[in-house]
């Protein structure tokens, strides 16, 4: 029980006690009511009274006939939390507390999938976190099973089922060994939310090139560049060719196009040509000019 609730109950008891002794005014509040549900409060006494309900972000007032139930229609009380109800008539009043709980049926899942892009074949690289809300955007804090399903463009899918704690469920998944867009789906009580996770190739592996003379220049061309899982490295990835000779050097950064990088550059006979991409080095060629 929260401190605020204890305070309100104490205040309720303090102010209501003399009134209750009078036995002129009484209401029977339910301890809990689901968000969006109708509320019926039996009352005792005679004549007209006023029922005032104050809760998180809401305050309503209704005229009631004492002795018959006071009703609040469905959809009026929708914010989950603790409410204070006060029944008053003339100088008499009674105060009570009740709780509005989230509706039991989920309506929306806020699904946080991170990251949106990661290298292939990474253990526990993908995290999924789900917050379960009812139709009134109340966080459903009661435990609820949530399933996570990660389906890659190729290969088997991964499925995990967790139970939410205080409205939150989370898991971690591995990225697939093959590149592609994976569908990451979270489901709870028939509601689902989908995210897309791009599983992209890793660093180039076994980077190699060839050099052939073309019109006084060297035509440098890589073999199709792939990562260590055999995925083609994306076009646009920069490959650096460097020709080094005694006292001189030429370099050019070339983006991959259709899996290969190629350039024609003037190279001195006797130069050593190397290739690299990022921090990955490839083979070297000693250029004779022929």
């Amino acid at each position, binding site marked *: 029980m929260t401190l605020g609730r204890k305070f309100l109950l104490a205040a309720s008891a303090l102010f209501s006690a003399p009134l209750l002794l009078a036995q002129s005014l009484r209401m029977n509040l339910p301890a809990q009511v689901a968000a969006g549900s109708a509320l019926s409060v039996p009352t005792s006494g005679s004549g007209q009274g006023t029922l005032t309900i104050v809760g998180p972000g809401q305050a309503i007032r209704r005229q009631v006939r004492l002795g018959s139930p006071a009703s609040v229609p469905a959809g009026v009380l929708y914010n989950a939390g603790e409410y204070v109800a006060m029944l008053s008539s003339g100088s008499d009043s009674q105060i009570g507390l009740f709780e509005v709980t989230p509706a039991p049926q989920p309506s*929306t899942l*806020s*699904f*946080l*999938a*991170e*990251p*949106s*892009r990661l290298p292939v074949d990474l253990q526990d690289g993908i995290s999924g976190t789900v*917050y379960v809300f009812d139709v009134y955007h109340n966080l459903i804090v009661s435990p609820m099973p949530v399933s996570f399903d990660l389906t890659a463009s190729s290969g088997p899918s991964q499925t995990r089922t967790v139970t939410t704690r205080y409205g939150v469920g989370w898991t971690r998944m591995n990225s697939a060994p093959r590149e592609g867009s994976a569908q990451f789906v979270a489901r709870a009580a028939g509601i689902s939310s989908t*995210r*897309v996770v791009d599983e*992209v*190739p890793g*660093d*180039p592996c076994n980077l190699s090139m060839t050099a052939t003379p073309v019109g006084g220049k060297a035509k440098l061309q890589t073999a199709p560049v792939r990562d260590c899982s055999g995925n083609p*490295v*994306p*076009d*646009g*990835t*920069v*490959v650096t060719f460097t020709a080094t000779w005694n*006292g*001189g*050097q*030429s*370099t*050019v*950064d*070339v*983006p991959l*196009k259709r899996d290969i990088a190629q*350039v024609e*550059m*003037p190279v001195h006979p006797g130069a050593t040509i190397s290739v690299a*991409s*990022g*921090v990955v080095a490839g083979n070297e060629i000693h250029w004779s000019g022929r």
Partner: protein
Amino acid sequence: MKGALLALVMTAATGVLLAIGTIWPVPSAVYYAGGGKGTLLSAASTPEAAVQNLGVRIRLHDWQRAYSSLANKAQFTEDAFIHDLTGYNLSLRSQASLDSVTVRPLHQSADSADVAMTLHWFTVMGPFDETRNVHLVENDGRWQVDWPLYKQPTVPPQVIPVNYLRWDVIYSGSADQWGAQDVAGPNVRIVDMRPVNRAEGVYVLGELLNNDVVPAWVTVRATLVGKDGKILGREGAFDMISHRLLPKEVTPFRIHFPNVDLSQVASIRMHPEAILISASADPVVEILNQKYSALPIATLTGQLSDQSGQTVSFAHVLSTFYDSNGNVVWVSGRFIGRALLPQTPVNFTVPVPEDLARRITSERTIVATYSPKGVTL
């Protein structure tokens, strides 16, 4: 009362300043007012004086008099002379102002001389220098410059097919619900970092890798923490970095902390930052014939050659220098004054501090380029 006193003081101060300006005018104001050469120009009785006079006229954009003073003006038009100095295309040169000129004599006889004329330009991106070997001839006791006109190479008409990649980014909209997915920022990492202590302060040198498959706009900031835990300074790489990085591209960076000594520093916090951007994979620029020489002046020289079909308006050469153990010794850079025309090599020179020159055994150079949309040959 106070207002009247202030008005009186301001009136008196204005009068005094007017009197000073009239009695001792600024030389350039006299020149512009048609009051003769004032003290800006001296008699062209020596080759050095003739070159300095030409420099003054260029600095003041007095193109007509500068052109008229040349000995070989019959060989080219005044427009060609102006374009030589201000650029034929949008480039750093077209946005630059001449700061000063230094002259170094090379050779002199009774009626001819050769000097090295260095024009010191300044721009919003920093200064750049240009040295030309200038021939002078003597006519009736007056020296005149034979201007070595730079003729812009003509690129033959052709069609250069370009089909490099372009990345476009669509971010999530502001109306999307909480928790909606957005594209993740690029994954970048610092692959090398080294603080260097110098007389002008501490430099943090290093290299940054775009380890992702998407282009990134990057910058690096550093925070120096003193031995007492207090922050000594926070600085960024500013222009000593290539801000646009394609996938697997590496840029050097240099961060300067003036007035700090490395002995004061207990730790350095590095803050690499990267934002996903739309970008194009072209142009490809070759960096040819790089030659590092420690003597007589420590410099790296080379040529840039634009392999694409578009004119590159602004190019920035950035070099990383390493010692024999592969450690970063220095990072230096230079903006290129002229636009890069397709398939047309342009020379560059990157300076290196003399005291570091002998430690350098290898280097790695990249070029960052920028061309505003709509700029064509």
